[in-house]
């Protein structure tokens, strides 16, 4: 398992980024954690429908998204808010999906990130088609797709991997093996020791790495993205990580795992090891920490306000969003709703 930065913050390999860049990525991880905790908190207040926290997976998401070009495609899940935000998806829209507003699925024009996928598995195929399409249009854009350990059991994972390998698409398959699919532990999901080895079934390279190690993630993602961009085809990356929180805010993880296991993974926290590394390199102090936390908190607060301030969608939006032009069927239904006083 590839590792560059140990949980203690010691280098055991060549760091893929310099100190200023490491500070930037660290700050992004701090921002992501603040967002995640804020979202969890306001969900408890009933201001969001269920929320799927990603605490513990910040290095995997931030480190991998950091290597993309701004116009690359990203297709992730309900748990990949940090990666999507890195690629330009505003926090407020990532929240809006959870306040129950479809507007949340509509990132700005220049952001090539599909709305978070709720179905498990299907979206990986989309990333294959996106990258394929770009190549056919002679563009250099690649596509990265995020998914979990559970998703590898779906047939669509298989079809996506196979199509990507056969048609040699510029797709990076980034699996966050966070050890659980809701209550199902990794060993119940597959009889293999790793997810990375599944790449062999497709004639694709597979890489396994410490997903809580920002540097290992960054290095492997950069390698895979370059490979994809150069027309050398897809890669499967398995980032071994852990979901420290519940599956979603409706989940009760005590039903299926021990606190001791969680504690063991807490000591492998992806932020803490980078903090130590920066500290040793005189690039971190309490003051800066407070400063960035203050700034990023303000951004998150503002995002919450924006999300909650979005105009509530009226019924017209319903009928107007299905096709470029509503069909006659939908126009009839619109009148019917009116006539029923709805």
């Amino acid at each position: 398992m590839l590792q560059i930065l140990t949980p203690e913050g010691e280098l055991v390999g060549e760091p893929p980024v310099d100190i200023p860049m490491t500070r930037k990525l660290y700050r992004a991880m701090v921002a992501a954690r603040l967002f995640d905790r804020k979202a969890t908190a306001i969900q408890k207040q009933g201001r969001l429908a269920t929320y799927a926290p990603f605490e513990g997976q910040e290095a995997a998401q931030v480190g991998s998204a950091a290597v993309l070009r701004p116009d690359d495609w990203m297709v992730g899940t309900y748990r990949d808010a940090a990666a999507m935000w890195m690629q330009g998806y505003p926090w407020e829209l990532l929240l809006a999906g959870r306040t129950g507003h479809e507007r949340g699925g509509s990132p700005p024009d220049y952001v090539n990130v599909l709305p978070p996928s709720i179905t498990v598995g299907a979206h990986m195929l989309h990333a294959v088609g996106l990258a394929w399409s770009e190549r056919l249009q002679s563009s250099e854009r690649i596509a990265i797709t995020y998914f979990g350990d559970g998703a590898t059991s779906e047939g669509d994972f298989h079809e996506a991997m196979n199509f990507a390998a056969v048609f040699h698409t510029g797709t990076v398959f980034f699996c966050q093996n966070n050890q659980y699919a809701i209550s199902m532990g990794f060993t119940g999901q597959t009889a293999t020791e790793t997810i990375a080895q599944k790449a062999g079934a497709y004639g694709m390279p597979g890489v396994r790495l410490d997903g809580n190690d920002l540097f290992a993630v960054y290095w492997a993602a950069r390698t895979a993205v370059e490979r994809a961009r150069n027309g050398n085809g897809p890669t499967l990356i398995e980032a071994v990580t852990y979901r420290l929180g519940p599956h979603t805010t409706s989940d009760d993880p005590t039903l299926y795992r021990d606190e001791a296991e969680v504690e063991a993974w807490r000591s492998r926290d992806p932020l803490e090891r980078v903090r130590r590394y920066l500290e040793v390199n005189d690039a971190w102090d309490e003051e800066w920490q407070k400063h960035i936390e203050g700034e990023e908190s303000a951004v998150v607060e503002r995002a919450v306000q924006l999300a909650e301030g979005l105009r509530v969608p009226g019924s017209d939006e319903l009928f107007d969003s299905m096709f470029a032009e509503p069909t006659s069927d939908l126009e009839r239904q619109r009148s019917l709703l009116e006539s029923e006083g709805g």
Partner: protein
Amino acid sequence: MPIRTLAQAINEALDIALGQDDRVLLMGEDVGKTGGVFRLSSGLYEKYGPDRVIDAPVAESGIIGTAFGMAVAGMRPITEIQFMGFSYPAYDQIVSHVGRIRNRSRHRFTAPMVIRMPFGGGIGAAEHHSESTESIYAHTPGVKVVVPSTPYDAKGMLLEAIDDPDPVIFLEPIRLYRSVKEDIPEGSYRVPLGLARVLAAGDDVTIITYGAMTAAARKALAILSQEGVSAELIDLRSIVPLDLDTIVESVQKTGRAVVVHEAHRTAGFGAEVVAQIQEHALFSLLAPVQRVTGWDTIVPLKLAEHHYVPTADRIVAAVGKTLEE
């Protein structure tokens, strides 16, 4: 008789079936250790063990396809699809195999299995979690499709479905899991599949529905009765097979009907009910049968969901239309 929610009634039925017959097993995502995302199978994993209450990998086609094989070889699998919106990856297995093996083999092989699916909206859930696409299963030959809306029916129908010699799709209205309660018998009892139930007798109009929409319809009845309108309320309970007699008898009496479902309108099951009414009771109709339905749109997320899921007011308005003529 103890008071039970619909969720508890299902749990009891599962417990009884697993306890009575070694061939019965439950399989689905998270049904074991956690008792399922709705906790409907709570306690059963501990009681019957991992061979009988099986936590499956995240693969719906895998769940239905292997359960199908198990059923063919003599087990009585009950499968849980976490939400109806996640049943589509298993759709091919259901249409192409589960519903066909008896015909394909002229009774040599059969697949007695139950496919449970929580369905319907109204709880402000995430996308795909509010689906109500029962008509696609109603259009699938070889499977029965039933929908209890009370704890009593849920328990009795589930036990009946498990014993059915053919596959049964068992739809569970999410919104009613914990919002309806009633006294139900302890131990085993049966409610036959294929029979509707008249929830309230009335003379002026027949309201036909099933699942969570029975709750909206009951509310509508209360409003209507204040307005002096006497409505008969039919809970279909089974859409395949359809209890046509109960429907036709009622419409012949009232001369007016409103069919309610939260499914999309076009080719929803309401169309079938209307078609049957007009085939069998056209000349009793004093006004066009009205359909109160979800729209041909995606079920909206929380903030706009009320524009989609039929409400008591929309039902009342539709009844009003039938009374205009």
